[in-house]
């Protein structure tokens, strides 16, 4: 998973640069449960790259690493809510996602951003892009699949301890401090969405020490289930989830069903109109799970299917 440019300048085995980068990556992502910025810096004495505390590295949405003045970083402690509050959802909202399959070329930028911001290892993928083919004669297409945040979530239904729950804003989240690791939700989810931390999750040290937040799902916890959370920490700040902003092709529309509007960052459209005009549908509608994620069929495509094959791997390697 270490394929970022900054690592190339460093000798093998030195990952402090990466650690810093991750640290600021999630700082920028609004994880401020640790308290004031200053405190984060002061813990950083061993680092070679931040001896000048004014400059910090952050990841831009298109995956570039840039050094900026620390005063540019916004302190997001305003948007942090307690874990009890986080169970309720953001008032007045009903989040939906529309995935336009005609624009997807399996660029996997969404996945990269997701892995990066949620500090996920190679084998845990919250967002996958499947190579789909509905019948042998039909054309194959690429289908990104986050958690579908069902309105009738089978996972929530079976959870014995209310560790996974449905919020008023439509999000299905997991409390990793309550999860007992029975994995019933994984068996119940028809969309293979959930992943399990079979061992102690690999994270930068300071991520491990943070107070647990339901809205960032960090720090990740051993022996518990996790999954795509629609980045509620971003939604709190009225920003888009990372996969949406990372996509170079505008595949993902995200928005609020109550306002009937969704945006892919470039254009903002009426949800109802988009679904009507482009024949939107939900995956496995017949199961009755009522997903919050709609798909637009792969017609009049922006890219030929084959364009995505270069990124396609059937397997990932297990570390």
């Amino acid at each position, binding site marked *: 998973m270490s394929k970022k440019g900054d690592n190339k300048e460093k000798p093998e085995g030195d990952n402090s640069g990466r650690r810093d980068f991750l640290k600021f990556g999630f700082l920028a992502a609004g994880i401020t449960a640790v308290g004031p910025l200053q405190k984060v810096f002061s813990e950083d004495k061993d680092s070679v790259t931040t001896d000048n505390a004014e400059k910090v590295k952050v990841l831009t949405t298109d995956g570039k690493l840039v050094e900026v003045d620390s005063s540019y970083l916004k302190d997001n402690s305003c948007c942090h809510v307690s874990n009890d509050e986080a169970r309720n959802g953001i008032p007045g909202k009903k989040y939906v996602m529309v995935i336009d399959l005609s624009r997807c070329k399996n660029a996997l930028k969404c996945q990269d951003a997701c892995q990066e911001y949620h500090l996920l290892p190679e084998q845990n993928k919250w967002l996958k892009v499947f190579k789909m083919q509905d019948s042998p004669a039909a054309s194959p297409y690429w289908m990104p699949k986050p958690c579908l945040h069902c309105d009738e979530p089978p996972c929530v239904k079976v959870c014995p301890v209310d560790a996974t729950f449905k919020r008023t804003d439509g999000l299905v989240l997991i409390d990793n401090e309550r999860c007992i*690791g*029975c994995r019933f939700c994984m068996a119940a989810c028809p969309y293979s969405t959930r992943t399990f931390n079979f061992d102690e999750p690999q994270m930068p040290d300071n991520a491990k020490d943070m107070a647990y937040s339901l809205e960032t799902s960090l720090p990740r916890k051993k022996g518990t289930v996790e999954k795509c959370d629609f980045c509620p920490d971003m939604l709190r700040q009225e920003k888009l989830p990372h996969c949406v902003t990372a996509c170079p092709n505008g595949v993902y529309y995200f928005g609020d069903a109550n306002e009937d509007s969704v945006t892919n960052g470039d254009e903002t459209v009426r949800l109802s109109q988009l679904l009507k005009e482009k024949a939107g549908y939900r995956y496995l509608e017949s199961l009755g799970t009522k997903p919050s994620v709609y798909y637009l069929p792969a017609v009049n495509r922006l890219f030929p299917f084959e364009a995505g094959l270069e990124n396609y791997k059937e397997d990932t390697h297990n570390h």
Partner: protein
Amino acid sequence: MEELGRPNNEKEAIQMLHRYNMDLLPQKFGIAGKIWVMLLLLIIGVGLYYYIQQLRYGLSVTGLSDTVSWGIYISNFVFFVAVSLVGSLITAVLHLLNISWRAPLTRISEIIAVACIVFAGIIIIVDMGRPDRLLNMFIHGRIQSPIVWDVIVVMTYMTISLLLLYFPLLPGIAFCRDRLKNIPKWQHKMYIMLSFGWQNKPEQYNVVKKAVTIMSILIIPVALSIHTVTSWLFETTYRPGWDSTNFGAYFVAGAFMVGAAAVIAGMYILRRFYDRFDEYITDKHFDRMGRLLVLLSFIYLYFTVNEYFIPGYKMKGEEGEHLRALFTGHYAPMFWMVQIFGMIIPIIVLLFQRGRKPLPIFIMAVFVIIGAWFKRYLIVIPTMLHPFLPLEQVPESAKHYAPTFAEWSITGASLAGALLIITIFVRYFPIISIWELAEERAIPHETIYKHLNKSDEK
């Protein structure tokens, strides 16, 4: 029963009771018994070592993955629940139907039930990613979750089974307390404590009998529930192979079958290792149990046809893919072995009277038990490997499932643990209930009570 006859007068009755004491009081283990216990302890020790590894390193010591997130711990759990159902079958059903040959078998089946339900509870905790948060089940428990239903019915069943084992055992414990000489002090103390001052009074027997009848009725719906609810853990999901309306009845039928087989195996082993047990567990018992097993196997066959072969006629979408993996694909060898050795051959052999002699029926029972274990493997694992979405972008290891040595050790330790409970029970308590046996053979109550009572010993 005919082999021993009924007593014609009180003198004969007392002679019979004397013989029961000699034969049925718990005895010290010989060399074979000691080796057996050591072997079980060794297996448990290895399993404990690996469980500590699992606690330290998490479930990564298993072969589980995000695809196959339930493995042999869960299939083994289903196996334990299935076998434990037998306690209710033999004790309750035969009791309520007033079957005249049940007395020597009730306690064997009850201790199997108790040992298995205890280890069903233990193995489900072993499967948890966070056993340290077990109490969350009670603090945050949601009654909407089938797991909570399962916890409730399993604990209820465990309680009733324990009582159903314990109440009729009271005279037996008191008897050991009064008659066993040259035993260690702790053993004597244990009998004193557990016998609760039992005095062989007719009123006490009446209370026990009434309690047993009430619990025999109570345990039947609970027993049906434990395995039905266990099947619901699967049936409440959308997965091909589990999304079946047949599952509850199918699981219960399978449980009765493997449970009867477990009792037969227990009967055979006891008879083999205790010299005079063939006077109590007779060929006739094997014959009767064989008939019962063949009936239960036919019921199971009926459900198997409904569960696999009728959906197999349609071969509907994902369901069809799953069935193909069982019929002709990766799991075909195991699937057909289980059907043939775990069901078809036992049915054929047990249909014949010669097949219901102790040795052949014991072999068939072992086939059924092993088949039943792998049957549960086939219920859990192949389904997990056939999700709706393609198995893509997962590690190669998540496209298959092979239990690791750690998983086998821990599973083996749970089976050894259940066998150890049964073994220890046989070592310290009468495995055949003397007073129930005496009643069954029409020895008058007063004679039994008087005989069992310490004060009349001399």
